[in-house]
């Protein structure tokens, strides 16, 4: 990632953990209870202007991203990492490449996703087909064709898996825009080799 990307500066004010009161404090506690962690991540704090929406975001993220579905957790983190690279979101790329590592991806694969160079990543034929589709939808969903989807079916992906891949791509389109619009500082999970508490 270039310096420009990693030197994110905060652009829109968020409510910090210590300053949260009332509904915002309650929403932060909702995230803490759901995650079992204490320090609210920047992207979650970006939602502090609407604590009711924050709680819903915790719920739908758990439903569609942080659980097994039609797609495995590992495939969801591949999608999340690659979309975040394509949308130039250093915050999300750092954290989801780390989650991808936690899902058992080897160092070479994680490095490939961090660099946006999937040639280097240790991927199956089906995973490569899926990542090509992720790129098409992220760079312009309107340009995707029935043939692009057919190639996924031929690679072995089922209709419900393709649908869920689109939900995950869209989820990251949303969070990448929120993190970059707010200018959320990178958490450096990859460099630290662990999450914040």
């Amino acid at each position, binding site marked *: 990632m270039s310096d420009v990307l990693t030197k994110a500066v905060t652009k829109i004010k968020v409510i910090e953990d210590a300053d949260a009161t009332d509904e915002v404090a309650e929403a932060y506690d909702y995230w803490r209870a759901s995650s079992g962690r204490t320090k609210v991540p920047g992207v979650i704090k970006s939602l502090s202007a609407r604590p009711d929406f924050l709680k819903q975001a915790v719920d739908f993220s758990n439903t569609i991203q942080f659980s097994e579905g039609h797609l495995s957790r590992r495939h969801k983190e591949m999608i999340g990492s690659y979309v975040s690279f394509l949308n130039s979101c250093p915050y999300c790329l750092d954290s989801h490449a780390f989650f991808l590592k936690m899902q058992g991806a080897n160092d070479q694969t994680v490095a490939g996703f961090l660099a946006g160079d999937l040639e280097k990543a240790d991927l199956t034929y089906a995973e490569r087909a899926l990542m090509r589709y992720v790129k098409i939808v992220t760079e312009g969903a309107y340009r995707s064709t029935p043939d*692009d989807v057919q190639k996924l079916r031929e690679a072995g992906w089922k*209709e419900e898996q393709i649908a869920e891949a*689109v939900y995950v791509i869209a989820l990251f389109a949303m969070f990448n825009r929120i993190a970059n619009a707010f200018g959320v500082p990178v958490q450096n999970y990859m460099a630290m080799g662990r999450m914040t508490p």
Partner: protein
Amino acid sequence: MSDEQEKKTLMPDYIQDISKLGLKIKLIQDAEATGDTAKAYDEWRAASGRTQMPGILKCFGQRPDFLRHVMQFSNTVHFSEGHLSRRYKEMIASYVSYLNRCPY
């Protein structure tokens, strides 16, 4: 001028024509929905007072649990007054949809 022609003059062809690519991923249609998908569709009908599921919501038919979340947070953040008015939210939605070339 027919309705169809009028629509074409209001939305530029390069956006309007995107829908000509047709359906790419299968949607679960109203009539073929079963189990929890049928239940989630019924919940939308009861909440909206309408009968035919909009295409954008049918895109979520493969994960009815997620569809429910989508309906809820859309109401929370878009289809209600907030820090911004409903009118400003629809200005934002219309312009983002134009910029992302989403004719729907």
